[in-house]
């Protein structure tokens, strides 16, 4: 991708203008993840004009795609060749883009077994805060030439630059899947995760909520069949299972929404990332457990400090996903050393602090 590309040239022009005025820009794709992170000031920088799949060769297991391409369009193109994005990126709403998927760094139900967005990024073309178009990584799975800047972009919330194009590793869709259900409380569910984790069971996703545990198996026919026999439980019909996992991925289940009654009760939706074997959370409110225990969603009226302490006590961190009061900061505070590295990286990529100023932390 070159600066001569007319769509990219328009974006560079807007960035150059903002640099001249030292004015911030808010990078905008499909707007499907507007609720994630702090609010960034500035004129919107629309990148949805950078569309299209640049190259896709199924035998290379790699797709290179421009950042404004709709995630739904990319996934449809992969499906035509029996392939998919193994990290199951959430869409939340229609219109989400590939660039937004990488910048948000969110992975869906398969994360614990198939890896994250970051794990599947192979290369990126980036517009940095000096107005330079830079490419890092590439289209091959093994590549250690220079620092791994492309994977640093996953989850960077656009604070380091504009993702223009990205190469992703893709995989063949599993030949067989099955979803099993069990009735149990959260403690029993966590105990089962511990028991299953060290066995070769072809588990591709787990989720527990309000007394019901869902387990998805995926892999070769023989492996899925033998895991079904060993685990027992009740099997869901395939269509029902697919739409259920999609509703978890996209947060379309009622649990994930924050309605006016929740807000009136002072509730917020938190995401806690903790070691999978951490004991049950001791917080008021409802919980939704995913990733074999490593991701715990909590809708609670507990004070931010209490939620954060609970997460740190279990060896993890807590992010405020939806909630009226954001004064506590959306993301968990960093150590002094880590914050210094963050400031250094912001300085390295975007010295004038043009892009998504403050979207992750104040001062970045």
């Amino acid at each position, binding site marked *: 991708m070159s600066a001569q590309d007319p769509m990219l040239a328009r974006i560079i022009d807007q960035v150059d203008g903002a640099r001249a005025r030292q004015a911030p820009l808010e990078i905008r794709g499909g707007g499907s993840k507007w609720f994630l992170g702090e609010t960034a000031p500035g004129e919107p920088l629309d990148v949805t004009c950078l569309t299209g799949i640049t190259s896709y*060769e199924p*035998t*290379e297991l*790699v797709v290179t795609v421009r950042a404004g391409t709709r995630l739904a369009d990319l996934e449809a193109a992969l499906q035509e060749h*029996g392939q998919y994005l193994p990290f199951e990126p959430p869409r939340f709403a229609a219109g989400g883009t590939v660039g937004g998927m990488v910048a948000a*760094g969110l992975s869906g139900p398969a*994360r614990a077994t198939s890896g994250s967005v*970051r*794990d599947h990024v192979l290369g990126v073309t980036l517009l940095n805060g*000096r107005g*330079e178009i*830079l490419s890092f990584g*590439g*289209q*091959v*799975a*093994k*590549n*250690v*030439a*220079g*620092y*791994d*800047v492309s*994977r*640093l972009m996953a*989850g960077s919330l656009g604070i*380091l630059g504009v993702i223009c194009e990205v190469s992703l590793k893709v*995989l*063949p869709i599993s030949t067989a899947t099955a979803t099993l259900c069990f009735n149990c409380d959260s403690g029993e569910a966590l105990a089962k995760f*511990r028991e299953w*984790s*060290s*066995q*070769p069971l072809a588990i591709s996703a787990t989720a527990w909520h309000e007394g019901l545990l869902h387990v998805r198996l995926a*892999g*070769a026919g*023989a*492996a899925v069949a*033998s895991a079904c026999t060993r685990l027992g439980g009740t099997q869901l019909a395939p269509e029902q299972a697919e739409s259920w996992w999609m509703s978890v991925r996209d947060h379309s289940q009622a649990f994930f929404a924050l309605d006016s009654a929740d807000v009136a009760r002072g509730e917020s939706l938190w995401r806690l*990332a903790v*070691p*999978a*074997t951490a004991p049950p959370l001791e917080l008021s409110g409802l919980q939704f457990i995913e990733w074999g225990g490593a991701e715990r969603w909590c809708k609670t009226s507990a004070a931010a400090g209490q939620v954060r302490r609970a997460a740190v006590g279990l*060896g*993890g*961190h807590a992010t405020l996903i939806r909630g009226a009061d954001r004064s506590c900061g959306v*993301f968990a*505070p*960093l*150590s002094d*050393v880590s914050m210094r*590295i*963050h400031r*250094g*990286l912001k*300085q*390295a990529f975007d010295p004038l602090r043009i892009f998504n100023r403050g979207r*992750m*932390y104040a001062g970045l």
Partner: protein
Amino acid sequence: MNSSLRSLPSDAVREQRQKDVVAALAEVLPRAAILFRHEDTVPFECDALTAYRTSPMVVVLPDSEAQVAAVLKICHKMSVPVIARGAGTGLSGGAMPHRSGVTLSLAKFNKILRIDPAACTAVVQCGVRNLAISEAAAPYGLYYAPDPSSQIACTIGGNVAENSGGVHCLKYGLTLHNVLRVRGFMATGEAVEFGSEALDAAGLDLLPIILGSEGMLAVTTEVTVKLIPKPQSARCIMASFDDIESAGAAVASVIAHGIIPAGLEMMDKAMTAAVDAFVHADYDLSAAAILLCESDGTAAEVEEEIARMEQVLGAAGASRMEVSRDEAQRLKFWSGRKNAFPASGSISPDYMCMDSTIPRKRLAEMLRAIQQMELKYNLRCANVFHAGDGNLHPLILFDAADADQMHRCELFGADILETSVRLGGTVTGEHGVGIEKLNSMCVQFSAAERAQFLAVKHAFDPLELLNPGKVIPTLQRCAEYGKMHVHRGMLPFPELPRF
């Protein structure tokens, strides 16, 4: 490197500096943990890229994190470069010492701190050998997946520095995909953690930037790795091909059929001959190329997959196929592959191992290009590929005692790397840039991209004390390399030393 040659201190200045640094270090380390006499530091002069050597000013062997922090604080205060070193098995000179620097050997950090079979994790010190992790996890039915060929000796700290791969990373990923958390120290001596035992950490994801950073951003002391259940069963197909084109096409065909083998390796005739004489792996020595294609999983899964693999390889033109009957034969197939480097050492006084990656579909084209280069540079080359990943390890055979051969070997290597970039690949897949591929970095990255790398380095280490001079070539070096390029293969001023 040319610029650092010019700035070398005189012997007298260096001797005084050495004295001062040793005196400062003696405040925080026992005397026995500080080496500075030439005869004591000789073993640290190079890593496995033995053609390039430098005598370190001082070598320290701390045995606690407190000592590492103290050493770093002193070096930071005195502006002394620090080169962290694991087992010294690196192939690109990443651990080559600095003449005015301290080599920080982490050999004493060799304890496995914790294995948690329920969490499927191991917490280990950086100097623990790669294979030792799998051995310690074996009683729980678990193992650590990345398996670089040097796994018997290389350490996890070195694997973190290089983001090492291995023969099974097509299915199980690189070090990056199997490490949860890295604990270490900044150049200032401050403790720092990257990643977490949860699946992510707050803020930017710094773990991928640390993995593969070749000891230039922080010094790793402790690592939490993921363990995975050991497959119940594994079988390997050895498939022979009469020409390299069909072997290359067979690799693409396996993937096109939706199969992700546990390992998919290719060796050419020169390589199979060398390894078979070395370890008797029972390879088909008449084949132009052989593929090793492995399946692992439950017994039923493996049977199903092996049958599909045989069908695909057969249709792709395999002239002969042998499926491992038992574990002994499977290991025998792999013993040849894993001994490719020492076997090359047995047929030639020296070899230079290249490490580029190209798109799989260009494998045959690349092999043909290498055959042409053998004629052009009048040197032999044996080829072993992680074919499933498109990662090539051509081994250029030469005699380092012959300056002309050494020179031709360097040109041969640079030619392979540039061809790889031209074919859409990269100059290093898993061995790192170190000092070996500095010139090739000029070819793969623009000046702005290299400046961005340097800016990243400064975010972590503004004084450039950690492993300086590696990975990122200076503008001047690239300019000089660019000039040499004009006369491809016919360097101006051939009498000048280049390294």
